[in-house]
């Protein structure tokens, strides 16, 4: 039984989430005693991908992430030819759309947003987050073929070695029914769902004109900026920066929350963070209960001190 991995590896630098998914795929293949076939699309850098410790790389140059029916046909076709036992995706924009389609097509059970490797001791069970990270669940897959989408930042990347055979996919994926008209680049920086460090601020900042110091601290820490829901709702910051239960859920290594009280809905979107630092002028702010480090103080005094310390730290390294 082979393992199929579909990962979005577009662009010259392969995304960390894709490398994590490949690592996960290799480990599942080790468990099951099979090989990994990496399926990808677009301008994926096949030379780099061939060295990731997989047996085969199949790239469909004409497919795009937007047409999930084409990607589904691609994965289903390869899975059939390779006699796939497990099909693995990243739980990102592409995987969230394609993994369920593949699962429905093959009548295969899917674990969405897996955070552990499969436990194959008497069945096939995988752990995932539920209730917006407030609990976890072990899900047993009962179908012969298993589909897993792996939550980013759940397992560390392990570089592989070897040289995979590379194949350009030549099958018929059908006509695209969704066309991409335009892509508006978000600018520099790591997008929130993939960010390892996040600096976030809330209403305590008093107005959008005060975000300069947040951006500066983020820059010094090589972090991505985020905000709380009220801040996005008041249009102080763009919607895509809103982290929380109804915005983006993130699980970075470091989350610094400034002037955010820590409502339960906000915590639900950030509780997967490894280390949480809370800066708030109110010592009773509920966020301190969920924090690893806390500072009670005025953001306008504390944040400049952090910027200064971060700058000093960077200059000494």
């Amino acid at each position, binding site marked *: 039984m082979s393992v199929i991995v579909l990962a979005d590896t577009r662009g010259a630098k392969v995304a960390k989430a894709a490398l994590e998914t490949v690592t996960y795929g290799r480990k599942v293949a080790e468990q099951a005693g099979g090989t990994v076939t990496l399926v990808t699309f677009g301008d994926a850098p096949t030379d780099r991908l061939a060295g990731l410790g997989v047996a085969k790389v199949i790239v469909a140059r004409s497919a795009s992430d937007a047409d999930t029916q084409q990607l589904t046909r691609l994965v289903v076709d390869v899975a059939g030819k390779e006699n796939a036992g497990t099909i693995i995706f990243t739980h990102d924009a592409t995987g969230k759309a394609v993994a369920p*389609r593949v699962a429905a097509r093959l009548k295969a059970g899917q674990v969405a947003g897996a955070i552990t490797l499969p436990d194959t001791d008497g069945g096939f069970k995988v752990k995932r987050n539920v209730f917006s990270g407030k609990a976890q669940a072990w899900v047993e897959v009962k179908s012969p073929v298993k589909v897993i989408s792996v939550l980013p930042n759940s397992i560390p990347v392990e570089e592989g070695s070897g040289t995979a055979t590379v194949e350009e996919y030549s099958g018929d994926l059908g006509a695209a029914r*969704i066309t991409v008209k335009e892509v508006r680049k978000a600018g520099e920086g*790591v997008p929130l*769902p993939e960010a390892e460090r996040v600096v976030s601020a809330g209403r305590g900042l008093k107005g959008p004109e005060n975000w300069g110091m947040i951006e500066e601290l983020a820059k010094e820490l090589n972090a991505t900026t985020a905000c709380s829901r009220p801040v996005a709702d008041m249009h102080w910051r763009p919607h895509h920066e809103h982290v929380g239960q109804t915005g983006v859920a993130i699980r970075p290594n470091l989350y610094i929350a400034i002037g955010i009280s820590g409502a339960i809905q906000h915590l639900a979107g950030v509780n997967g963070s490894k280390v949480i630092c809370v800066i708030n002028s109110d010592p009773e702010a509920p966020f301190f209960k969920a924090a690893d480090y806390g500072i009670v103080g005025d953001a306008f005094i504390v944040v400049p001190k952090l910027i200064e310390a971060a700058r000093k730290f960077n200059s000494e390294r």
Partner: protein
Amino acid sequence: MKILVLISHVPDTTARIGFTNDNTAYDTSGVTFIVNPYDEWYALVRALELKEAQGGTVTTITVGGADTDATIRKALAIGADDAVRVDARPNDSYAVAFQVAEYAKDKGYDLIMAGKETIDHNGSQVGPMVAELLELPFVSLATKLDVSGTTATAERDVKGDVEVVEASLPLVVSCAKGMAEQRIPNMRGIMAARTKPLTVLPAVSSEPLTETVRFELPPPKQAVKMIPADDAGKLIELLHTEAKVI
């Protein structure tokens, strides 16, 4: 335009999370249930806006027991025209998607809309599974949706970039923040919802492909380490030497 909106019945965002039956079932005692916020704020409200601008109907569908009827009435109070409930326990994403697809397959919906995920199971699975079962295109994580004639234009967040995509109807769309603003039902809507049709259909038989065998609560967090504001810069040092995240 005929629009179908998938409505899920979920515990309130502030509900206590606990489990019963040897950690195999969610403990619903004392818990208030609501319309899944993504289904309500984004999918349903945008569906209503499209209907108000262009005419048509908005039907909701829910897979669940009679305990979900109050949640369904809330969606009707916000403005849906009618509702369907498939009488089955929503234990597995595929089983739910299968019920929705079986209902929708011969109804000629132009748009099928769902929230990007539910706040209890967080799977993001039912929308794309319905699309696959009906062999329809699917736009995921849409933050904007417009329809002109039979062409839909949507914006979606992909790795931080905004992708503008176009597709012909019929189409399945999952909706994320940005799509619409929350609507609070008014008294007239609440009164009208009482008499709007809520059709209960028997489930079509299907085998679940997955089973949630055990829930766990995360280990309790260690006590917070407080740093005096005067010495705030110390945090950067601790993040390096102690937490090892920078």
